[in-house]
C-alpha cells in the first residue's frame, strides 16, 4: 500500500515536472529572439523546369524523361559576417527533397536566432554519424520504414543520398530504356568505402532572420550538370549506377548544380 502510494507520488512528481518544462518551452518559443527561414529548391534542366512528362536532352544528345528525383539535404548551418555560425539542431536538420512532392521542396527552419546571416552551408546526403546511429534516432526523413523508403541500401547499410531515375532511348531496350542513378556512400563503418557526401556553401548577403520577417532562400538546381559538370556521364555507356567508384564522380557533378537564386521575404 505504502509502496503504491510512493509510486503514485513519483508519477505525480514527474507529471508536474513535465508540466513545468512544457509551460517553459511554450513561453520561450514566443520570445522575440528567434525567427523562421525557408529554403526553397527548384529543379531545372538547361533552364527549363523539370517535370515528369516533358522530354529533356542532355549535352550528349540523349533524350530523357524523369520519373524520380530525390535527395537528402542535411546539416544546415547559417554563418554570419563575424565568422560565428548557427547550426540547425541535429534532430531537425535532415530533409528528403522529392520532385514529386511540392511541399518537400520547401525546407522550413524554425527558432533560428535573429540576426543577419551572410551564408548558408548544407550537405547533399547524410553524414556518417547519422548513417551509423542507433535506429531510434533515425526518425522523420531518415525513417527507413517511412519517409526514407527506397532511399536506403538494405544490403549495404547506408542512405541513398541522391536518386535520379527515368527513361531514355539511350538506355538498353532489355531494361525497358530505364536509367537509374543511385548515389550514396558515407565512407564506411569498419572498412573504408566510397564517400559521396558533398557540402555546398552559398553567400546570402543581407539575409535577415527575425520574428516579423520570413525570409525565403531560393536554390536553383539545374540537373543538366549531373551529366557533364566535371565527368561526362552518358546514359548509353552507363545507364545504371547503384554502388561504384563512379558514384563519387556523379556526386561531384550534381553538387555543382546547386546554385543560389535569390532571397525574398514572405
Amino acid at each position, binding site marked *: 500500500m505504502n509502496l503504491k502510494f510512493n509510486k503514485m507520488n513519483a508519477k505525480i512528481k514527474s507529471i508536474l515536472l513535465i508540466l513545468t518544462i512544457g509551460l517553459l518551452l*511554450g513561453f520561450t518559443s514566443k520570445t522575440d529572439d528567434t525567427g523562421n527561414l525557408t529554403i526553397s529548391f527548384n529543379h531545372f534542366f538547361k533552364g527549363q523546369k523539370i517535370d515528369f512528362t516533358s522530354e529533356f536532352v542532355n549535352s550528349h544528345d540523349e533524350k530523357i524523361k524523369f520519373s524520380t528525383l530525390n535527395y537528402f539535404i542535411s546539416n544546415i548551418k547559417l554563418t554570419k559576417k563575424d565568422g560565428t555560425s548557427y547550426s540547425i539542431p541535429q534532430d531537425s536538420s535532415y530533409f528528403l527533397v522529392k520532385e514529386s512532392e511540392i511541399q518537400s521542396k520547401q525546407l522550413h527552419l524554425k527558432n533560428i536566432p535573429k540576426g543577419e546571416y551572410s551564408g548558408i552551408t548544407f550537405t547533399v546526403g547524410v553524414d556518417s554519424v547519422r548513417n551509423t546511429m542507433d*535506429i*531510434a534516432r533515425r526518425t522523420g526523413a531518415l525513417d527507413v520504414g*517511412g519517409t526514407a523508403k527506397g532511399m536506403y541500401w538494405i544490403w549495404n547499410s547506408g542512405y541513398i543520398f541522391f536518386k535520379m531515375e527515368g527513361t531514355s532511348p539511350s538506355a538498353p531496350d532489355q531494361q525497358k530504356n530505364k536509367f537509374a542513378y543511385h548515389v550514396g556512400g558515407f565512407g564506411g563503418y569498419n572498412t573504408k568505402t566510397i564517400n559521396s557526401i558533398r557540402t555546398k556553401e552559398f553567400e546570402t548577403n543581407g539575409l535577415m532572420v527575425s520574428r516579423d520577417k520570413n525570409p525565403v532562400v531560393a536554390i536553383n538546381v539545374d540537373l543538366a550538370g549531373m551529366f557533364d559538370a566535371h565527368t561526362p556521364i552518358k546514359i548509353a555507356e552507363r545507364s545504371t549506377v547503384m554502388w561504384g567508384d563512379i558514384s563519387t564522380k556523379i556526386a561531384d557533378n550534381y553538387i555543382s548544380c546547386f546554385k543560389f537564386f535569390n532571397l525574398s521575404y514572405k
Partner: protein
Amino acid sequence: MYLIFFLMIAFVVASAFVIDDDQPVKIVVPSNFPAPVYNLEKNKITQKGVELGRQLFYDGLLSIDGSTSCGSCHQQVSAFVQQDHDFSHGVENRIGRRNALPLANLIFSKSFFWDGGVFNLDLTPVNAIENEVEMGENLDHVLKKLNASLLYKARFKATYGVDSITTNLFLKSISQFLATMVSANSRYDKYVRKEGEVLNADELEGLNIFKDKCSTCHSSDLFTDGSFRNNGSTADFRFDKGRHEITLADADIGKFKVPSLRNVEFTGPYMHDGSLQSLEEVLEHYNSGMKASASLDPVFKKRDKPGISLDGNEKRKLVAFLKTLTDQEFLTNKKLSEF
C-alpha cells in the same frame, strides 16, 4: 506545442501502467566469450519484447505473400539455417544466390551476412524483408500491415505502451529475440569452462589439431575472427564477388565472411555457395580441393599446392572435435522455437 505536452503526459501515465510491470531479461555473457558488440544499453531487453520478437521472427506477415518468415530459412533444428538447401528459398519459391548463414551469438558479431554489408544487428531483418528473392516486401508496408493488425497493436501497446508501431520498435523487438540466441552450452563449452564435461581422446586430439591448423581464422570461442577471406571454395566470382561488392576494393574480390563453427554438425551444406555437403568434404577441400585465385588467403599458401595438409586420421579427429560444438540446449530451447 500543447499536443506534444499532452502526449508526454499520456506517455508517462501509460508507462507507469505498462513498463513498470515488465521483467527485464539479463543477457548473460558466457565467461569464455568476448564482450558483446551490440549495445544492449540502447535496447532494454524485456520478457515481453523478446516474446514479441519471437512472434515476428516466425510470422509470414513479414513477407509479400505471407509465405515466408525469418524462421523459414532459419530453422532451429538445423541451428537456424535452412535444412538441406544450398541456396535459400524465399517467396514464390525464388532462390537466393547465397547459402543462409546460421544464427547464433549475433550480439557478438561486428558485421552480418557473407559480405558484411550490414554492421548493425537492428538492420539485419530489413535485408531479408526487402530482398526480392527472400521475403520480397517493403519495410514500410510491413509496418502498415502490423499497424492494421489488432493483435500486434495490442502486443506493442503491452510491451512499449505505444499506439503506433514504428520502424524502431519493430526492429528492436526482433533484435531482442535475436539477442537471446546465445549458443554457449556445447560439450566443448562445458569442457573449457571446467563444468565437469570430459572430452574423449579423439576429441581432445581434434581440438589440438584445430588449434594448430584452423584457429587462425576460426578464432576465439566464437570460432570466427569476423574477417573476410577467400578460402578457395571457388575461383569463379562472376556472379558473386563477396566482400568486394561492399568495399569495391579489387583485393576483396572473392572474400567472404569467416563463419562461426558453432553447431557446425547441423549447418550444412557449407560455404557461401553451399557447395560442400559434409564436414568430411569440407576438410578434404582444405586438404586437396582448394581452387586458387588472386585473393586466396595467405594462410593457405604455406605449401606448394594451396591448402592445409590433413591426413585421414587428423580429419577423423577434427570431425570428432567439431561435433563437440553442438549445443543441444540451443537446438531444443523452447524459448527459441516457433511453437
